[in-house]
């Protein structure tokens, strides 16, 4: 029996989070990996952790436009989610 080459292995949000966390742990000073993790955390509604992570990304790379936008979004969502 052969594996269907067109089949796509879908990573769950949880698996993705675990993988990205591990990557960030391995390379904690890579702003891109941190940003990827922060994006996943926002999607998973872990806003506090995402915001901290995004702030660290901006400190490392001040011109990171996407990180700044995501931080603004996270900051806007956080109080709303808390209510």
């Amino acid at each position, binding site marked *: 029996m052969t594996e269907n080459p067109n089949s796509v292995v879908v990573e769950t949000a949880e698996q993705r989070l675990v993988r990205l966390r591990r990557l960030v742990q391995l*390379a904690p000073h890579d702003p*891109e990996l941190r940003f990827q993790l922060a994006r996943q955390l926002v999607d998973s509604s872990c806003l506090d952790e995402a915001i901290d992570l995004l702030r660290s990304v901006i400190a490392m*790379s*001040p*011109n990171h436009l996407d990180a700044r936008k995501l931080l603004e979004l996270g900051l806007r969502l956080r109080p709303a989610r808390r209510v």
Partner: protein
Amino acid sequence: MLSETQEIRLFGLRYRTVLVSLTIVAFVILSLMALTLPSVLTPGQGPGAVDDLFSRFHNSGIRLFVLSVLLGVILTASVLTVFSYFSTRKRLARIRTTSKAILESLVGGVLTVDTEGRITIINRAASKILELPSQSPYPDLATMAQRHPRLAEVIRQSLQFDEYVQDDDVAFVNSQGDRLILRTTVSAQVDESGRRVGLVVLVKDVSAIIALEQELRKRDRLVTAGTLAAGVAHEIRNPLSAIELNLRLLRDEVASSSPGHPDMDEYFEVLFAETRRLNRITSSFLQLSRPGPIAKVRVSVQEPVRQVLRLLESEAMGKGVSFSVDLPNDGIEVLGDATKLEQVCLNLLINSMQAMPHGGIIQVSCNRTRSEAGDTVDLIIADQGVGVPKENMQRLFDPYFTTRPDGTGLGLAIADRIVSDHGGTILVESTPGEGTTMTVRLPLPATVDGGQEAS
């Protein structure tokens, strides 16, 4: 060399001259011979009158003929001289008019000076470039030295030592405050005998050419950097992660095997700091190498600015920086990519904020401008920062050029590249200690690519 038309004219002149001369000679001969005829003489006078007049020649027909020819030649020479004088005068006037027309039509400036250094001729272009009077009285060398010290020095040296220059670039700040680069060539002006009678000075404003050359060199460097960046970033990132991981393991190992070693923590801190720096550089590399295609659609210039100002508001407040914003309410639209333009604003504003460690005001404004190149919109960001030293101005947008120890030198390079991809340019004015004004000049849709909007 004479042209065909000039040859024909000259032939006509010679023909006329010969004809007139022959007529004169014939007239003189006939007149003198006629004098010998008794019928011509007045009654009562007889040949005696002629005898008195030509006492030596009246008996000899040959002598009379010689006299006639001599008189004819003298008269012919006189006529020829008069003809030649008028014709030469006419030709000189024509040559002068032609020379003047050629001189005045030259784009480059031409001026001549005599051996004393006084200007004798100056064409319109030279007068305009050097801001000197186009009519006499012209300034002397001493007066010229006040406005053009370098040029005056070149002229003085050429006159004094017979040393001439070719394509020497001389800087000159004109009355508008623009810094011009004048490419100057000085050569000797000699007369027909080869004696030097002065100098010919050629002056050409090459500021635009030099700026273009620099721009092209910069673009070349950007393209090279972009191409290299992708490969380098990918090649470096993976081993860098491995280095970082192993460093951590090593630190833990060292900490457990020889605890309480004070220097060890410091060593590791340095290693981690350098790893962080490398990470930041590779990230910026990737940003530069992945500019992405620009989706040119109609976008308001003000919107990306407002968006970025919102993003930076709290950070700016924390650093004692405030924004003074003057943006027109009606949207000024350009053809471009809103996200890319946001990146430009972000990079420029971050740069301004970093230049103001003690806080201050950043003025952000936007207005339409009209120039020969077409209608444009200027987005102006003026800070009160430390300013840019003159020697750094040319390299400001060069990739990897930075004056900050923690900078990557790619923020402004990326901004410049994006603006350039939009058909625009970034202009910089700076006074060290007072601040810097960056103007992002973007073409308005009618002038982008000959008015063709991208789909």
